[in-house]
């Protein structure tokens, strides 16, 4: 049991630290890399929670595709640094206070529920979380959302192209 706790807390620590790092770093690229680390630690969490498919999907989609895209754009725009001036002075303290309040609230909820949630069972089927299981559910119970998601992706592609294509047309018309 304790190995699990040690494993959990160390991974949790990595996770939180990387998140904070993303929060505080001035350089956008560093922030992106911190986020990648966060994603990786969360992927390990997924593995611990008997969700291997999701874990690999996390790594390949989030860390592999989405963050790469982020880094592309950061490089493209040359947006590593932003100016130090704060337009709204009071925003930061208020946000921090609110964050702390929310944390307090969540902590209160969890602590008050401490004794009421029975622990989960340790035994679990081997096939739980396997790609086969995910696939079966995906293509039977959740077929419709699956198909709609594909449409959604199509829309996103079209949208992305449309949003960046307009400029070029006006340039050509001006000529």
């Amino acid at each position, binding site marked *: 049991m304790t190995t699990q706790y040690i494993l959990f807390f160390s991974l949790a620590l990595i996770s939180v630290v990387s998140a904070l790092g993303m929060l505080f770093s001035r350089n956008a690229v560093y922030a992106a890399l911190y986020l990648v680390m966060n994603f990786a630690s969360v992927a390990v969490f997924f593995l611990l929670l008997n969700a291997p498919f999701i874990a690999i999907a996390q790594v390949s989609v989030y860390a592999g595709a989405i963050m790469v895209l982020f880094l592309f754009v950061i490089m493209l725009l040359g947006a590593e640094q932003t100016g130090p001036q704060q337009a709204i002075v009071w925003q930061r303290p208020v946000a921090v206070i*609110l964050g702390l309040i929310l944390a307090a609230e969540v902590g209160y909820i969890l602590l008050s529920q401490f004794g009421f949630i029975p622990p989960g069972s340790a035994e679990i089927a081997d096939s739980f979380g396997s790609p086969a299981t995910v696939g079966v559910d995906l293509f039977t119970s959740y077929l419709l959302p699956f198909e709609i998601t594909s449409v959604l992706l199509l829309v996103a592609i079209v949208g992305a192209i449309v949003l960046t294509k307009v400029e070029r047309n006006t340039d050509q018309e001006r000529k």
Partner: protein
Amino acid sequence: MFLSEVTSPGGFFYLVPLVVFFPVAGLLINIILGSKFSEKMIGLVACLAPGLSFAVSVLLAISLSWYPEGVTIPFLDWISVGELELPWAFRVDTLSVTMMLVVSGVGTLIHIYAVGYMHEDVRHNGDPKRYQRFFVYFNLFIAAMMLLVSADNYLMLFVGWEGVGLCSYLLIGFWYEKGKDGIGNAIAGKKAFITNRIGDFGFLIASFLMFWYFKSFSFDVVFEKAPEVAAAAPGVIFAMTMFMLLGVTGKSAQLPLFVWLPDAMAGPTPVSALIHAATMVTAGVYLVARSYALYVLVPEAQTWVAIVGGVTALFAATIAVGQFDIKKVLAYSTISQLGFMVAAVGMGAFVAGMFHLVTHAFFKALLFLSSGSVIQGLERGHHAVEHDPLLRKRLKSEHHFDPQDMRNMGGLRNRMKTTFWVYLIGALALAGIFPLAGFWSKDEILAEALHLNPAVYWLLTIAAFFTAFYMGRQIIMVFFGEPKSEPAAQAQESPAVMTTPLIVLAVLSLFGGFLNLPFIHTFTNWLEHTIPLEEAVEATGEVAAATPGYMFGGLNLIVAGVSFGLALIAIAVSWYFYTRRTAEMQKLPANKRPDDPLRGVLGPVFTVLENKYWVDELYWAVIVNPYVVISRFLAEKVDWAFWHDFFHDKIIVGGYNGLTWLLSKPIDTSFIDGIANGLGQGTQELAATMRKMQSGFVRNYALSVFIGVVVIIGYLVLQLR
């Protein structure tokens, strides 16, 4: 329709509503279609109306000769409230049919005369549109008078009473823009109306008393119950009859309310003839005759009525001696003759009074119409003179030529022959010369007076003397001698449409007396069915038998002889003064010549008579002027100055203005507007403040979302507790 309820004994009684409705139809046709009719058509319609009423009256008279007790024909239910039942019913009995015949018969003749008279008149005096209006009013009068005489109860009588008063007012002021100062005629009409109103007040009080004690207005009920009420409360019947006397003095122009009749001569001559000689003024006499059952119960009231009649007769006869206007003489003569009638019915000689009413209608209408013919003859002469340059020079016109002044007339006997003869017949009838109509009727009154009330007999006899005198005076001044003015010399006779009714009336004046000859007593028997005179006849019979000269079946030869002799003497005296004395007067130089021979004889007495004892001035000073002064004071000082200017304007209006200022300025403008505007302004300022939330920064919006999340979760957490 309603008449089917009547179990009429037969005859033509059911036709009686037509006597009222023929004139009403006539006036309605003339009102609605008159403006499109020619004058002849209007006149024809207007004359047909009373003519047809006369025909119906004749039929009723024939029916009555079969059933002399008379019937009541109910027409419709007018008032039905509580104990009071007032149907509009027509009473057909000998008394009312007598009146109907007189009114419609004489009325038709006067209408025909008026067709000619008004034709001339509207050309001299006013615009032709007036023709239609005249005949509408004339027919309205006939309708109202018929209503009066055919009524079955006192209230319907009063409706007719008021109706004739209204028509009198309308017709006296017919030329409303003429007269003294441009409103003299209107004032005369107003005077007639107001004086009549005072009389009506008397009538109303009497009818209130009647309702209180009898609980009904119907003749039958009242006369039946009268003896019991008289026994129970004797003062009531006396009061009732005395108040009715007040009404009679108003309508029939007796002392003290006679003052309107001479002024009423301002109206056209046919009006004077019809309303103020033959019909309306006799309504009072009719009222007393109809109420005989009440009067015989209170001899004191009877005495009062007789005295009033007698004194008025003498009083007015003396005034007539001093008048110069041809119509004024006739007006005072009418008052005097009405005094005869009122005295007669007051004493209890109802038949004599009604007989005199009928004959007086004949000859007084004749006299008035003839005087109208004379006046128009003079106007035609004046017209001719004005248009002839030769004659114009001879016209002495320092002042306005008055065609009605007898001092401008004279010698018309030759120029207006028909008018002269009919006038003469009328005058002799009025003076009481045998065997004309006035002799018989006046003599009957005198005979009754002798043994019923000797004081009244003397009053009436002296009045008869003066009557003959002033009529002689008038005839001689107008028709004999030399013409005293150029228009008189050029006067022209009236057309046939006017002279024919005169001839008819002259015939009636000649032979009308034969209605009630001694021994035959047609009229007495006729009226007896309505006015049962058994008690009166017996009483008078006893007394009469004791009186000397009573023989010849009701004709008292001594009385007749005395009155006839006095009349002849009076005419001889007038002849003396106005023929011989006038000729002597003409020899005097013009500036010393008095206008009337009597001035020399009577001196200041004549002036008093000429000014009619200054009765009008007395009334003005004692009654009218104080009233006017008080009302002016109340109107100007109290009503306008105090009430209106001060109280109304300052206090009410000022207070109201102040209050509205208060409400508008500090309350509405400052306070309420302040609130309203303040709301708007506050909203604007609030919005200006709230607008700052839209900072434009996305992060702020995200923060607000986050705040919301935190708050909601906080609420849920607190719920967990």
